[in-house]
């Protein structure tokens, strides 16, 4: 039913992604669909990497580790951004279109009052993407 699964990852908080990563891997095996991990990063040094190139390398390593751990086919792509806190929603939508993904699995927080002011990234992607979106809470 699904041909390509896209999973946005935040390499700073991989510990919070456990459930979403597991769900994505299960769906990948079930439908025989490869998983495409994407991440939006700043051009400035971050806790994860000194620069975008180094970040891309770490994301690729993350993808390979997931492939080995779950026995699935994975690809990765990183998107450097001038202002990731704001650009992330737009960039993820572009990434979904570019990758031709038809299912998005992403971790999201339990909604609270702040979501009335600005929706969560997951909420925003689900509102505007053509793909099916599975928000893991």
């Amino acid at each position: 039913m699904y041909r390509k699964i896209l999973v946005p990852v935040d390499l700073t908080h991989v510990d919070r992604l456990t459930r979403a990563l597991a769900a994505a891997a299960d769906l990948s095996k079930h439908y025989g669909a490869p998983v495409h991990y994407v991440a939006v990063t700043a051009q400035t040094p971050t806790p994860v990497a000194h620069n975008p190139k180094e970040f891309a390398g770490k994301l690729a390593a993350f993808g390979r580790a997931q492939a080995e751990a779950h026995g699935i086919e994975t690809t990765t792509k990183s998107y450097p951004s001038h202002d990731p806190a704001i650009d992330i929603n737009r960039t993820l939508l572009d990434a979904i279109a570019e990758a031709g993904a038809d299912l998005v699995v992403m971790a999201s927080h339990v909604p609270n009052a702040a979501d009335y002011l600005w929706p969560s990234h997951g909420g925003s992607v689900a509102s505007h993407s053509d793909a099916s979106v599975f928000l893991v809470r």
Partner: protein
Amino acid sequence: MSDQTDEAEEALPPPEGESDIIDTEYEIGQDNVTPQIGPFGLDIHNPVFVVSGLVVLGFVIITLAFQNVLGPLFADLRGFLTSSFDWFFLIAGNIFVLVCLAILVSPLGKVRIGGADATPDYGYPGWFAMLFAAGMGIGLMFFGVLEPVYYFATPWGDQPLMGDIGVVEGTLADPATVEAARRMAMAATIYHWGLHPWAIYAVVALSLALFAYNKGLPLTVRSIFYPIFGERIWGWPGHVIDILAVFATLFGLATSLGFGAQQAAAGIGYVFGIPGINDTVTAAVILIAGITVLALISVLRGLDGGVKRLSEINLVLAIVLMAFVFLVGPTVALSTQLFGNIGAYATEVFALSNPVGRDDDGFRQGWTAFYWAWWISWSPFVGMFIARVSRGRTVREFITCVLLIPTLASALWMTVFGGTAIDQVIERVSDSAVYGFVVETYVPELSLFGMLSELPFATVTSIVAIILVVVFFTTSSDSGSLVIDTITAGGKVNAPVSQRVFWVIFEGIVAATLLIGGGLIALQAAAVSTGLPFAIVLLLACYALIRGLIAEPR
């Protein structure tokens, strides 16, 4: 915009070509705490965020409570610093210019910000619009007419280098004296808006860009001092530098916001004939609220969709207004004066920047040292913002675009606005509106509108000018809030959005509070006073910068 890394790579790829990464144990964000306040999750540096916030809050409360004592105290402090350390400010300013020019012509100019193979994040127009709007914008609106005319016409003993005066007791001096006074007024004005201020910004911006994009340290002011303090920079010496930077930035912005709102309100009152609009603070507070909302929209649209776009709109509006004044003003005279003014600046800059043995205290201490302290206190903010948007440029390109081109742009702006205003004073002397606002009665915020009122379509151009004042403020306010957000998040540029919202609103509230309760002048003096410690800090930064550049591959 993206890196395809499908193929397996075991080793980390080299960072955007070669660069000299600093090997530190410090991990960006390791001192951050992530409290949850109500529905808002935060990601803030401990203790920089909390201490900066409390220090600002404390200063506002204490200033309001003890206004009569602290107002004169801060004013005295500023006066003391600019009159006792004028020589130091002037020497420091000269050193910054020389360091920049030396780097420009040396082989260090070949170093590329972000690694040898990095490509520029922004094209020239967007980049220039952002650095100009953040760095200088609003001052040009306030001083573009005021400063040249003031120097041209005030026989108050503070004229540049005791030069001749164009207007003596309401009548024009002889033509040769008038021309000499005009030339000197323009040279002195361009001196204050030319190489020296931009060199201050360039040193800070280049250092920050180098230590963040090439050395991999967090994008925060303390990173510059890694070569000097080493790992201790992640402790209290670094905290103090960052907190001081937040303090100077926030009070610099908030007090300017207060004064800017008064200028815009005065302009509205003048154009639409509402006398006494500044007798109460209502109009100014409404304007502050409006500017804060605009800045909020801008930061919520992000660096590309908000801040950059607004800066571009700002630059286009400014060019339109300048082109208009140039065309309806004394066009032919201004065209020849531009080269004459730049020539005058080039010859007089040596005498003007000489730190010792001068007898023009009023000019050197009251204007030059004050300006230098002011630019230096703004430099953490402007420098950090310029650094953030300058990745991918070579150092030579960077200095050309941050030092030389803005200096020419300032010279052009001052020639058009100041030249037109001086021309009005020469033509009509005490009948001209500018003379009335600058010399007869000192109403500095109306000097620009006075000049525009004697040109065609005065109402239209004045409205454009008011809009420009508001937009210039918004472009300083939004970029300033992003900078404070980044510093107080320990160098993270992707901190939760609620934090930048907090800083924009906080800044608006501080400005409005000071306007209502009084204390704008006091706290502006306090912000400018940070210029002295920062001047020392920046001299150290020059050393760190050169050492950092030498270590880079080129």
